[in-house]
């Protein structure tokens, strides 16, 4: 019975290890780690509520709250792109917190209204183009300025975009182009761009990082990631496409059936306050906060300076549209590019 004894002992030790769980707010965060930690710390100081925080990407959070539905181990989900938050709201995985959003910017109120109060908009991330200045100069290529430039033949094998089947960033780009040019025109352009694409990465933030490290020349991604890379010292330039660009609205949602509804609601109120959002400056957060009074970094993208489309989240966030567009992408675009190993 030795093995049994050993397992019993270890189980005992393990139970001891898992024992000390005092009641506190369990937050899952899909923002940058430093921003997650800072917000949790400030919340604890300002409200006195103990926070346990873990960071996971949005897709992972959605998969987890689906699997845990009915007996959730997470109380509130903060950050990350808005689409998965909207899907969770549609599947009734999250509940309306009833927080007052009247002071928030218009897009935040829209998001809240669209989800029936379940997902409250907290920040905006703008879609943009990034290029590596050193590689561009070395190859003697012109700098891109518009979406349609990416389809120019001289960029053959120089463009990296992510795969919309795995990445929300790429899906936002797809939906943006469809809204800018109409569906047929957009897919024709995407197929032309596909001729130049050297790799369809799985992760949405990977293309920008590759461009920063000169592994590729031109990348499509979110501008706040790009500002971050530029600030770190990489030789990159950020382009806001001339035709106009789309954006994602990050959100915060309270998980359905949480035992800590009151504390979770406090968290939502806290993260949309000007005071809490202004602290993002300390850790280099470059997306645009939802409270008009929140301070932003001078280098952060400015919504007023960028030509924005009127992004239709209700249509392009819906599962039917999404599945149809992705099927079309698979058939018309995927086969066209992403095969260059040069």
């Amino acid at each position: 019975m030795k093995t049994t004894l050993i397992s019993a002992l270890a189980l005992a030790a393990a139970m001891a290890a898992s024992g000390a769980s005092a009641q506190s707010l369990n937050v899952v965060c899909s923002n940058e780690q430093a921003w997650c930690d800072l917000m949790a710390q400030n919340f604890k100081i300002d409200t006195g509520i103990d926070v346990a925080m873990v960071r996971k990407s949005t897709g992972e959070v959605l998969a987890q709250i689906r699997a845990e539905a009915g007996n959730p181990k997470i109380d509130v989900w903060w950050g990350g792109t808005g689409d998965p938050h909207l899907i969770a709201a549609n599947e009734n995985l999250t509940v309306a917190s009833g927080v007052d959003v009247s002071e928030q910017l218009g897009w935040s109120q829209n998001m809240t209204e669209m989800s029936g109060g379940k997902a409250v908009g907290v920040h905006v991330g703008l879609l943009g183009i990034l290029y590596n200045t050193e590689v561009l100069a070395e190859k003697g290529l012109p700098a891109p300025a518009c979406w349609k430039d990416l389809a120019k033949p001289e960029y053959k094998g120089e463009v990296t975009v992510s795969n919309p089947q795995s990445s929300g960033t790429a899906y936002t780009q797809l939906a943006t182009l469809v809204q800018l040019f109409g569906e047929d025109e957009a897919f024709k352009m995407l197929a032309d761009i596909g001729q130049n694409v050297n790799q369809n990465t799985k992760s949405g933030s990977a293309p920008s990082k590759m461009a920063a490290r000169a592994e590729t020349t031109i990348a499509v991604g979110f501008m706040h990631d790009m500002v971050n890379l530029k600030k770190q010292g990489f030789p990159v330039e950020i382009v806001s496409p001339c035709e106009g660009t789309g954006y994602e609205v990050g959100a915060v949602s309270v998980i359905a059936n949480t035992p800590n509804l009151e504390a979770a609601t406090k968290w939502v109120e806290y993260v949309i306050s000007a005071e809490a959002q202004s602290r993002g400056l300390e850790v280099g957060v470059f997306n645009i906060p939802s409270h008009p009074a929140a301070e932003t970094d001078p280098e952060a993208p400015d919504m007023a300076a960028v030509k924005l489309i009127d992004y239709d989240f209700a249509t392009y966030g819906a599962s039917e549209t999404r599945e149809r567009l992705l099927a079309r992408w698979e058939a018309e675009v995927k086969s066209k590019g992403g095969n260059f190993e040069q």
Partner: protein
Amino acid sequence: MRRTAGLWLLIGLAGYALLPWYMVAGGFWSFGWISSLGSDARPALLWAMEARGWLWLPLLGFAIAAAALALRRDHLTTARGLVLGGGLGLALMAAQGLVILGNGTRFGLLDGASQPGMGGGAFVTATALLFLLTTGISGMGRGRGDAFITGLIGAIIALVGIFVFYPMSFILIRAFELRGGAGLGVSEFLPRFFAPEIWSAACLTGRGTCGAALNSLLLALATATGTTLMGLAFALIFTRTNFRAKKLLRVLTILPIITPPFVIGLVLILLFGRAGTITEFFSDTFGWEKTRWLYGFYGVWLAQMLSFTPIAFLVLIGVVEGVSPSMEEASQTLDADRWQTFRFISLPLMRPGLANAFLLGFIESLADFGNPLVLGGNFNVLSTEIYFAIVGTVADPANAAILSLILLVMTLGAFLAQRKWLGRKNYATVTGKADSGRNAALNDGLRWTCYAVALPWAAFTLVLYLLIVFGSFVKLWGYDHTLTFEHYTRAFGIVYRNGIHFTGAAWNSYFTTLTIAAIAAPLTAAVGLATAYLLVRQKFAGKEAFEFSTMLSFAIPGTVIGVAYVMAFNFPPIELTATGLILIIVFVFRNMPVGVRGGIAAMSQLDKSLDEASITLGANSATTLRRVILPLMGPAILAALTYSFVRAITSVSAVIFLVSARYNMATSFIVGRVENGEFGIAIAYATVLIVTMLVAILALQLIIGRRKLRRADRIEAH
């Protein structure tokens, strides 16, 4: 039999009547439940008398077993009574747990009844019922009437059943889901399983890309072959040559296994990427064009070779060491030269090691997720496809389940192939008989081949690791090489003011990770080696199916395991999510196959006459295992411990869904930082982990020590 059964009966009754039946707030070992034994933490007996009548059911099993023991009939009747009592008790207990859940009952039975997840009392009760059952079975003459053997088999089957099959069933059943939520059926399964985009072979015939299944298969074959050969070359250098710097080489061979995910990929990009140092060098010197060859099959293969060669080596070293010099001497006496001796005597005797190393490399490559993600480019493999079927923009769990089944079929194929290759031959070379202890040296050609293959590889590894350390001390790796300690102070800052405060961002996950790994490693090794012992030394019905089932959790990508665990263990009867325990369990059952394979390889070399001698001298099988077999298994134990400890620290995909706010793991911290582009802090953390693991492994080697197979291990002079 009566004494063992009586003891288990008492233990079981105590668990049933005295310990809290359900999970208690604050955890079992805080003993906070003692004060609330009358309320929330009531034992099953009290619950049964009040509201939850179904909890009388387990007692029925004990009653039958007690009657069988008390009625003093003949031996066989008592044994049958124990089997009936234990079996019925377990079945009823499982049935009530699966029917009456936290939020109501299934099938509309017992309206309004609900119960929380099982706790300490239920655990003790179930264990006692299980061992009553197995003791009964041994009493009926099975397992040579040895209660230890039947108990061990029962315990392992129960553990694998609960922690491998039960969660897996949740996810694999979805492979048969019909589109649009129309229930289950097989009509869509076959077309989806054999979908051409999964199996396409276009890349072999010309222009086009291959399907993920074929890509995975080719990659796994290449990686398994490569790692086995490389592992063999290293093992031969260690055991059959007088190479001088063996100690340094030893450290270099295990380095890659202790590297957190993404780090190897990152270093390879910095060296061989389009803007990598080596690429730049060749471009400047020879005018070669800078290419992106790294992103694709070759890059992933290179990274997997680095990552998995240590595993092949760890399996092979014990086996190569164990090949008896007597056989080699006999061969040389019969006038065979060194090459013939190696080719016809030593190499065939190493087959169990080669087969198991190959199998592990094959499965590891199939399930690997980090390397294809970083270096895969447009080279799609099953593991990444599965991950994005679960977390991608359109979640498709059915597809994930089907792709996982394809992985399982490939694993089964490899498993059957290795069994066929090993055949029914006897590989025992450790017989207890005296030998000279002088292994035959390699012939010159082979020796130099080994050097030529292994030494550049070791040098390459060394360069990679120096680069990692370097990267953790510079501001922005690849661009700004100003030396800085900033990454370390941010991750591992300590403040001395009114005592020591661990203020660095990484401390929390660092301590959690080490604690969990330290608990999981010995458990993994124990379960793995016990299973290996059963498989090699005992005969029982369904042994091959049992052997394969122990490998299931290893062959399925971690992401699938993670989701399956959440689905299975988030609700009563067993509610484990958001605890540290679930992390320990997932590590034990995911890494146990390495213990099993290593154990099997090492144990098939031990001559059965050693066991028989021990049994003849009056020892039972438990004593034989402890005093004779375990001491001869040193390298296998070391390999299992090392591997499971390291894997608990470095694995990422399985834990993504299981880490919780309180129990966060180092890898999930590192991946978060890498996603955010903060390579400096990620690499600094990785470096600290590497050093920690290296120290732990060296300490383990010192504690376990070398096994002494013979008076002196020598190698014939060249």
